């Protein structure tokens, strides 16, 4: 029973992070949210007795993809629209 509750909690957390990543205008936060999706997915894979897939997801999804997106954001721009260009200049990544 507690297993079922935990897995539902993780699924809701994953869904929330996914919605946040889509809605968020600040791309840095959106990338971190996609990293959270991968992290929660790792736990779900482990609970569903697929440790091989969980290891891959942890290494590729959480670390490598997030960092590649971060480098991409650093080389392009941080915000989705051009409204807050002043903040764009002040961002710590620039």
């Amino acid at each position: 029973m507690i297993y079922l509750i935990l897995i539902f909690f993780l699924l809701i957390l994953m869904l929330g992070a996914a919605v946040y990543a889509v809605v968020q205008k600040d791309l840095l936060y959106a990338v971190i949210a996609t990293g959270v999706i991968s992290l929660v997915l790792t736990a779900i894979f482990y609970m569903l007795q697929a440790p091989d897939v969980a290891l891959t997801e942890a290494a590729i999804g959480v670390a490598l993809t997030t960092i590649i997106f971060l480098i991409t954001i650093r080389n392009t721009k941080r915000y989705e629209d051009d409204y807050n260009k002043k903040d764009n200049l002040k961002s710590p990544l620039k």
Partner: protein
Amino acid sequence: MKKFLVILILAVLGFHLFAAFSGLGFGVTRFEKGVKDFYLEKTVSELHVANTVTSIVVNFRGFDTLGEVTVLFLAVSAMGGILYKRRHHAGDRSVLFSSSSIVRSGSKLLFPAIILLGVYIFIHGHLSPGGGFQGGAIIATGFLLMLIAYENFSVSHNTLSYIESFAGIFFVVIGLLGFMNGGTFLQNFLPAGILNNLFSGGVIGIIYVMVGFKVAAELTGLIYTILHEKD
């Protein structure tokens, strides 16, 4: 003349591919009850491998793994080809932010442990969860940590490509040795050993070590190329 030659080679290749594939009956059920029972039974009784996933991925479906590794190789090569022009400016790296001393000492402390974990995972691929791809990805994560923490930490691109090429060639050579000894590509020709021992499962251990080296070199090279891309 050159074009004519290319067309001729393509025609010969096409003819033989068609001849090979025209005999296959697509959509015909060839297995009455599926192959899962076969895999589950043979993994322990014949191959003496503790991890069924590994035995399917490397032994029964080893050719698919070779294709998977080739896909990764092509993707990384294409990436390097696109970003090739800018790599000649040696020394300038797009630094995310200058790292603090905590990050520097922490990553220096963690780096050997991460490498050890990755090596452990791909050496014990046939005993515990994980394998070549997972171990290689973890090793690449360790190099990523060092590349981000230290601005002047660098890896040799030539060494990486030598490791990658050697591992890929070795994988294919082991597959071809199966032709000479057993009869099919990637057939197991080494003794199966004792279940749950490190030296068990025949060629699975060797192939997974090679896959681990290959994936680690490819992903490290990928990150290195992206970090040095600057405009």
